[in-house]
Structures are given as structure tokens and as C-alpha cells.
């Protein structure tokens, strides 16, 4: 090739220095190079746009499905809190009040609204318009202020989920009695709407209640609090242990077979499927140590095991990235190795360690499989009040609701996903904030 080049130079442009030939070649290839560069940039942009499009699709579909869950259909009823309706005798103490017949109040009120309903079947259909949870709402009100007895009060009570779905337009009106609502119920609903007795209001139940079999009574609070406690246990265990392990392995441990073996094993553990950790938790924490089932404590222990390798690996990477000159400077001044690590190396590695920890926590927050194994999938109505109470967590709650047959749980599922995403965003913002704070010190 060199030969042909030199001959062509000699032939075409005698006396011309070969240098110009180089430039010609560079020029001729230039177009191709620029094209390649443009193409490459285009690929990058397309990749980013595709990613953003998928993300937008996800958000839009979730929000579109879930935003209606933040509203709930309420029916206004005149409730006559008479002692007769409640079936109360002379006794007015708390026990008697709790036992009283509050369902009867709702039924009586509905009967008075629709006096033409007489048959047993129709009455049943009529009572089904209002949520079964209305009884509890009335009872709580009476227990709070017992002097309500004897008074008639106009109250907004949650409608049943079938009514709710119909009002929100998720179910169609059917001419026959094939749908969830019968034709006669549709007529009643129309009348209630005409009288201004039906209204959509902000669904505060969703944020204050635990799980329920009735969609209109189900709330996310139990799962959110459960997630909070579980993550609290996870971070309290895995962060100190992870940091200590990373510091020891990176700064103090001798390099030998044993530490190599440990390192390989930590890397392997990071890749173990999470359900395996769940089985381990079941075998060790529940069956061997006898810790309470479904408790955030056990969930946190299992998730700590799962996140520890992530935190250790991230922590070691952060420690390695601290320049050795800092260590030499401190050691050269006569600092002991612990002083060197505590005063200089660890603070410099902290932002990286925090990032690793938050990433591990985010993964733990979204983890379902290991928690199924330790019983956090149980149907739990009460909001947990500590790490020993039975509870569930957000992703498991999503899984449970997605599995429920009622139409009303579809929007609840999406709403729960939104709450989970909010949790994640909050955690990531915290991570960014902490990093900024630690970095600002120098």
C-alpha cells in the first residue's frame, strides 16, 4: 500500500511533499467521521427519548387509573339517633353504646327516603347502596359525643363501592340486572342525584385507614406505616453493620485467602434472589428464634440481610476512591489507623456510602418476595403501632389489592403505587440532600 501511495504521489504531483497527501486523506475521510459522530449522538438521544417515553407512559397510566381513588362517593342521609332506632334500653354506658344497632339507623333512614320499597329483596338492594362501614362511622360518632342520642342529623356517609364505581363512570348502566347494580338501584341512584344527596368528596379514608375487604373502606395507612417501620429496622441494622464491614475489609483486614473468599461471597450474596432471603428469614427468625410472624421487625431483619451486600460493596468502592495521599498525610502526622479512618477517610467516603445505602433501601422498599415468606402478606386491618405488631408493606399491599376481584380495588392499586413512588422520591431526595450536606463541609 505504501508503494502505491508513493508512486501515485510521484506520478500525479511531482515534487509535492507527501504531507499534503495526508491532509487530503484526512479531508476525504472527514465526512464519514462526522456522519459516524452524528449517528452515534442520534442513537444516544433516541435511547433517552425512548426511556423518557416509557417512564411517561408508566406515570400517565398509573395516574390516569389511580387519581379517582382520591375521591369517594358519599350519600347524604338524615340519621335519627333516637334510642328506639338504636335499640337502646336505660343503660347509656360505653359498652351499651358500642353494642347498639347502628345498621338499623342507616336502614331506617333509607326506608324513610324510599317508602315505596317494601319487598324483602328490594329492601336488601336498597340497603346495599350505602357502605357497610357506615355503621362504624355512626358508632364512632356516638361514642365520641353521646348527647347525639335523640337528635336527627344530616350526615354524609360513604356509598358502597358499586355505587362509587358507577358514579365515577367505571361501570356502565345496564338495562337488565346483569351488572353489579340492578336496574332498580340505578333508578334510586338517579333520584338521589336529583335530590343532591350524592356527592364526590376527598377520600380521607384512603390515608387514615388500614386494609379492608370493602374498597371504599380500604386505606393505605397500615401498609405505609408498616413499610416505614420495616425500613427503619432495615436502615438501623444494615447501615452500621455495612459501613463497619466495609471499613474493616478495606482499611484494616490483611489481604489473604480468607478476605478474598469473603469478598467473593459478598459479591455472590448481592446476586442471590430475594425470595431465598425470605426462606432464610422464615427458617431462622420465625422457626428458630420464634420472633412474631408478619412483624416489621422480622421484615427489617430479612431486608437487612438482603441489602447488606449492596451497602458493603458500595461502601468499599467509596473507600477505595478516597485518594491514598490523604491516608499517607494522616499517617505521616502520627495518626493511628483508626484516627486516619474516622477523621479523614470515612467522612470523604460518606457521600458514596450514603448513595449505596439509599439505593439498597429503595430496593428494600420495593421488595415483596422475601416478605411473603415471613407472613407479611396476611390481611391486616389495623395500623401497626410498633415493630412487633403484625403489618404489611406497600408493595405487598399493591400485590394484595391487584389480586382482589372488586372493581374498586383497581384504582386503589394505582393509588397505592403512587404512594409508593412518592415514598421513593422522598427517599431519593433525602439521599441527595444528605450528600450535599456532607460534601459541603469541604
Amino acid at each position, binding site marked *: 500500500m505504501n508503494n502505491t501511495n508513493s508512486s501515485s504521489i510521484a506520478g500525479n504531483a511531482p515534487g509535492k511533499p507527501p504531507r499534503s497527501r495526508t491532509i487530503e486523506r484526512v479531508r476525504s475521510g472527514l465526512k464519514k467521521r462526522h456522519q459516524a459522530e452524528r449517528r452515534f449522538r442520534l442513537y444516544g438521544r433516541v435511547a433517552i427519548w425512548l426511556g423518557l417515553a416509557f417512564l411517561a407512559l408508566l406515570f400517565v397510566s398509573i395516574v390516569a387509573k389511580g387519581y379517582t381513588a382520591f375521591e369517594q362517593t358519599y350519600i347524604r342521609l338524615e340519621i335519627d339517633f333516637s334510642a328506639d332506632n338504636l335499640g337502646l334500653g336505660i343503660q347509656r354506658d360505653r359498652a351499651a353504646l358500642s353494642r347498639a344497632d347502628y345498621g338499623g339507623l342507616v336502614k331506617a333512614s333509607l326506608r324513610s327516603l324510599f317508602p315505596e320499597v317494601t319487598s324483602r329483596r328490594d329492601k336488601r338492594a336498597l340497603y346495599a347502596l350505602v357502605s357497610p362501614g357506615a355503621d362504624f362511622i355512626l358508632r364512632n360518632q356516638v361514642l365520641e359525643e353521646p348527647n347525639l342520642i335523640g337528635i336527627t342529623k344530616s350526615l354524609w356517609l360513604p356509598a358502597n363501592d358499586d355505587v362509587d364505581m358507577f358514579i365515577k363512570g367505571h361501570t356502565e348502566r345496564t338495562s337488565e340486572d346483569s351488572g353489579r347494580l340492578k336496574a332498580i338501584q340505578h333508578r334510586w341512584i338517579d333520584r338521589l342525584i336529583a335530590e343532591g344527596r350524592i356527592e364526590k368528596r376527598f377520600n380521607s379514608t384512603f390515608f387514615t385507614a388500614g386494609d379492608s375487604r370493602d374498597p371504599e373502606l380500604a386505606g393505605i395507612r397500615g401498609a405505609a406505616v408498616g413499610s416505614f417501620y420495616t425500613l427503619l429496622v432495615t436502615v438501623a441494622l444494615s447501615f452500621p453493620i455495612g459501613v463497619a464491614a466495609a471499613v474493616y475489609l478495606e482499611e484494616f483486614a490483611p*489481604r489473604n485467602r480468607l478476605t478474598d473468599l469473603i469478598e467473593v461471597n459478598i459479591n455472590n450474596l448481592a446476586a442471590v434472589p430475594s425470595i431465598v432471603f425470605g426462606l432464610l428469614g422464615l427458617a431462622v427468625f420465625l422457626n428458630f428464634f420464634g420472633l412474631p410472624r408478619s412483624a416489621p421487625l422480622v421484615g427489617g431483619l430479612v431486608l437487612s440481610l438482603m441489602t447488606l451486600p449492596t451497602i458493603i460493596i458500595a461502601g468499599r468502592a467509596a473507600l477505595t476512591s478516597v485518594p*491514598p495521599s490523604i491516608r499517607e*498525610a*494522616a499517617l505521616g502526622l502520627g495518626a493511628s489507623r483508626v484516627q486516619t479512618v474516622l*477523621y479523614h477517610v470515612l467522612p470523604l467516603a460518606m457521600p458514596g456510602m450514603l448513595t449505596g445505602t439509599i439505593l439498597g433501601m429503595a430496593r428494600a422498599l420495593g421488595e415483596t418476595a422475601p416478605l411473603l415468606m415471613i407472613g407479611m402478606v396476611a390481611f391486616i386491618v389495623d395500623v401497626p403501632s410498633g415493630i412487633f405488631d403484625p403489618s404489611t408493606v406497600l408493595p405487598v399491599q399493591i400485590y394484595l389489592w391487584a389480586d382482589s376481584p372488586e372493581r374498586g380495588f383497581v384504582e386503589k392499586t394505582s393509588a397505592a403505587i403512587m404512594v409508593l413512588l412518592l415514598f421513593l422520591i422522598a427517599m431519593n431526595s433525602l439521599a441527595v440532600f444528605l450528600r450535599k450536606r456532607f460534601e459541603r463541609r469541604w
Partner: protein
Amino acid sequence: MNETKEAVGQADQFEQAEVIQVVATPQSTARVHREHRTTIGECRVDNPRMRCTDVNVFYDDKQAINNVSLDIGENEIIAMIGPSGCGKSTFLRCLNRMNDTIDGCRVIGEILMGEENINDPRIDVVPLRASVGMVFQKPNPFPKSIWENVAFGPKIHGLYDHKSELEEIIVTSLQRAGLWDEVKDRLDQPGTGLSGGQQQRLCIARTIAVEPEVILMDEPCSALDPISTAKVEELMMELEEQFSICIVTHSMQQAARVSRRTAYFHLGDLIEVGETEQIFRNPQHQLTEDYITGRFG
């Protein structure tokens, strides 16, 4: 770390080029032991701060320092010169056991400081490094404030009882390092925000704040411009009154300017040592002459 690898690599090259007698030594586990070249000149001084006798350093199986004996005198600046990879930095790091931090590095021999052999593994390095401070090739201030940089040494050693004493230590250290006027208004600013020369002087201030007896300087000016270099050299000559200073340098002019004695290293051997003037004016060994006249190195 890098330098030591380079040192080993270079030693290999020279080994192939030169004809070297290989003798087995029963006392060392090393496979190869080069014949020791006798040091020309007087390696001993009266009342030394540190006295090194037959120091050998191995990186795994490779020998980087070969039977070096040298005294560090009281209140003197001793310069160590020689081509890259001749072991001068390695030798310097023996004097405060910084080689401990390198995996696979073994130091054999006796390094006396007072009555103590500091090379004894039973010796605690913390007090040793408090009395033998070190300034590194690249300025390496802590990424903290100027104040905290200087305060760190006194803090970890508990050199003060009251905050006012610490303040005094910091101010005098910065003054003696010639940095006080430049930084007195911004002691809370990060030390990493200073210029290269200022950073190096901050590192010196940090070292003298601990009041060591010996200061080791490993090419302290190689990353600095001529003006900063001049300042650091001036500073060294002032500090000579109180400290013993060992400086490793690649600049022969620098060695000639600042040092009282000069030691020439070559391939792990201490070839020649003597008064600086004599070494530069009238070197005895051929290798020394070749090096300082610029024939190689």
C-alpha cells in the same frame, strides 16, 4: 507506591545491563542479592539524630535498598539525590516506617533514634511519626479548613490543654511556614483551595505543628513553580535551626543550594556521601560524577 514499582522495574533493567556478581546470602530470604558497593565518604557524624546501619529493603523478593548505612545529623539538611528508582524515597520512608503501609515491603537493618531501634516491629509507629514528620511529593492537605489542617496533629497527640494554646500552636506554625500573612484572614477556608506552593507550605506547617525532631521531605518541590520552590527552600533553611531535614530531590541545584550534606544513591546502593560542596565540586566516585555532570540520570 508507583515510585517503588518503577524503582524495582528500573533495577531490573540495570541488572541486565551491568555485570553483577550474584552471591547467595544466608541471612536474607531473597533469591538474588547484589554485591554491595562500598560507600565512599564518611556516612557517620557526631551526635546523630538517627543512625542507620546496614538497612536493606525488599519489595517481595526484589531488593530495593542494599546495605545502606547513613547518619542524620542534628540540625542539618541532608539531601538525597540519584536517578529515578535508586531507592532514595524508599530509604526516606524507612525513617518513619511509612513503608509499613506497603504490602510486601520488608525493611531489615538497624535504624537507631536515640537508643531505640525504630525498625523493631515492637516499636509503636504513632510516637515515632510524631517525632519524624513527613512532607510528600504532591501537596496533600486534608480537604478541610486551613485551621483544621494544622490543628489535626496537635489534636490527635493531645499537645495542648486549652484552646488558646492550640491557637498559639497554629499561628506560630503558620508563621514559621511563612504562610501566616497569606492565610490569616481565611483560616476557615478549605486548605485545598490554596495554590500549589501554599498547599505545600501548609503541609509543612502541619508537620511542624507537631514539633518533630526530623522532617522528611520527599521531592517537596517537584510539583511547584520556581517562585514557590524558592519560598520552600528559604523556609527549609530557616527550619534547619531547629529540625533535622532529609530531603529527596531530583534537582541537583536544589540539593546544592539547601543541603549541608549530600548522599548519592544508585540502584539501591549508597554510592557516596559527604559535604555538599565536596560532592558537587569534587566527587570521588565515577557514578556520582557522571550523575552530577548530567551524563546520565
